[in-house]
């Protein structure tokens, strides 16, 4: 069962016996009523298809960067790389769409309720992130690859520029994979 942070519904709970009421006392009955059972959900559910999709796109991307490492490119031979760009960007956009669909089916958590509960016992509020990390990081990877492709097509890339695109894409990809994998709980 899940608590207000999700759309879970409560299942009927058997009433306490008279003996139990006597034994555990009214204090615990209040606790029972307050907790009303339930697991909380503060983040999206894990989706193995998303995690696998990200890992697969990452393998393709890392292979591509490894092939370019230490080299320079020229617009004249851009056609040789065009297919690789399309494969990586296409795979990432597909994962991005999967994340979007997954989020629409499991809406973002509501931290307001948790923060209200924490506030009552003097615990500072949890900050809310801007957007869901996985989706946001994947969109940055896509943007990195698209910018790299555009520049490559226009006037080629220096070895340093390739290294900078590689570093940038890998950092964002690492954020997305870590978050999506961490959702497995």
């Amino acid at each position, binding site marked *: 069962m899940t608590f207000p942070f999700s759309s879970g519904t409560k299942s009927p709970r058997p009433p306490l016996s008279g003996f139990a009421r006597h034994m555990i006392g009214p204090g*615990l009955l209040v606790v029972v009523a307050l907790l009303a059972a339930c697991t909380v*959900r503060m983040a999206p559910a894990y989706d193995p298809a998303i995690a696998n999709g990200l890992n697969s796109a990452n393998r393709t991307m890392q292979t591509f960067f490894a092939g370019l490492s230490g080299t320079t490119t020229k617009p004249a031979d851009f056609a040789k790389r065009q297919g690789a760009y399309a494969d990586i960007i296409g795979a990432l956009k597909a994962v991005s769409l999967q994340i979007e669909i997954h989020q629409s089916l499991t809406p973002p958590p509501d931290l307001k309720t948790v923060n209200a509960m924490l506030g009552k016992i003097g615990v500072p509020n949890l900050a809310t992130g801007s957007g869901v990390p996985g989706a946001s990081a994947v969109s940055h990877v896509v943007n990195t690859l698209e910018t790299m492709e555009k520049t490559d097509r226009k006037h080629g890339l*220096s070895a340093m*520029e390739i290294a900078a695109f590689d570093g940038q894409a890998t*950092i964002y990809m*690492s954020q997305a994979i870590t978050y999506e994998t961490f959702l497995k709980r």
Partner: protein
Amino acid sequence: MELQELDPTALAKDIIGAATGALGKDVSTIEGFAQSQVAAIAHQASLVAKGIADGSIGQDLREYFLDNLKQMATSFANTLIGLVEVAIEKLINAIVGAIWDAIGKAAGIALPL
């Protein structure tokens, strides 16, 4: 189900055990991620600075890479918050589970989580 009187001391121990178990692995994972990201972002900043200084990063990409250094720091913080949220979720559920289990045993009922 055999009824057991709820022992607050035992419950407190159970809660601490549940909380420690839930947090232990997550703290290591989050710490490892944070360290590796900070090192990677620092390396990227150094790479971009060198590329701009020696001209090996073209004029049209300089602002783009600099802007992305800020973006990746924000994205890193955003990811970190997301990981902490998941860890807190697991912590709350582990604590509620321990309380629930104790109450269930005392009340003689199986309380659904």
